């Protein structure tokens, strides 16, 4: 019963990892996952105003619900092109 969590670019530099798993029973929505990691990596709070998130490869919001088996991603504003 787990949720796969992905970090990209400047956010991955803060967490020092690209991928993690969290127990789905401890998460209610996207923001609750971010809070779990922000306890271990306080610098994540600096990114909070601009951070983007996705659930299963679709843009999501902090209050978007999460479920067992979901893939949740956190990343900074995009800069491709």
């Amino acid at each position: 019963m787990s949720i796969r969590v992905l970090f990209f670019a400047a956010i991955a530099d803060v967490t020092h990892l690209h991928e993690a798993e969290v127990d789905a029973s401890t998460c209610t929505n996207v923001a609750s996952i971010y809070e779990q990691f922000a306890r271990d990596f306080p610098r994540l709070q600096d990114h909070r105003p601009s951070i983007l998130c996705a659930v299963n490869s679709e843009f999501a919001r902090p209050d978007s619900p999460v479920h067992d088996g979901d893939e949740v991603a956190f990343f900074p504003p995009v800069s491709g092109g």
Partner: protein
Amino acid sequence: MFRLVYEPIDTASFRNALVGPEDGAVAIFEGVVRNHAHGRRVSYLEYHAYESMAQRRLEEIGASARKEFLIRDIGILHRLGRINPAECSVAVVVTAAHRAAAFDACRFAIDAVKKTVPIWKKEFYEDGEAWVGGRD
């Protein structure tokens, strides 16, 4: 054709793969790596992506462009990994019967790529490196 690639983009063959006898116009946009940013010399860029989502977003942008503009075909290639100055990082090709739709859809597509596709670039300078934040 919507693809993330790690090898150099060959825009001419990309264009040739899309254009057909019904087309009267082809609009091509190339994003190119430049050797300077905010007054600093840039040695090269590195592009990273959330690949599964980026692939999906490119296809969605193509579908929106087809819906919104009178075009016949559209393709987007975005290169990832290390890219040197003067090399192409992204190519958008739009074919249409007439030029106005081709230009408009091409502009729409590159703007959407820069705003909504989860790709990030990192600038490498002679004395350091930094993620590029937000759109430019």
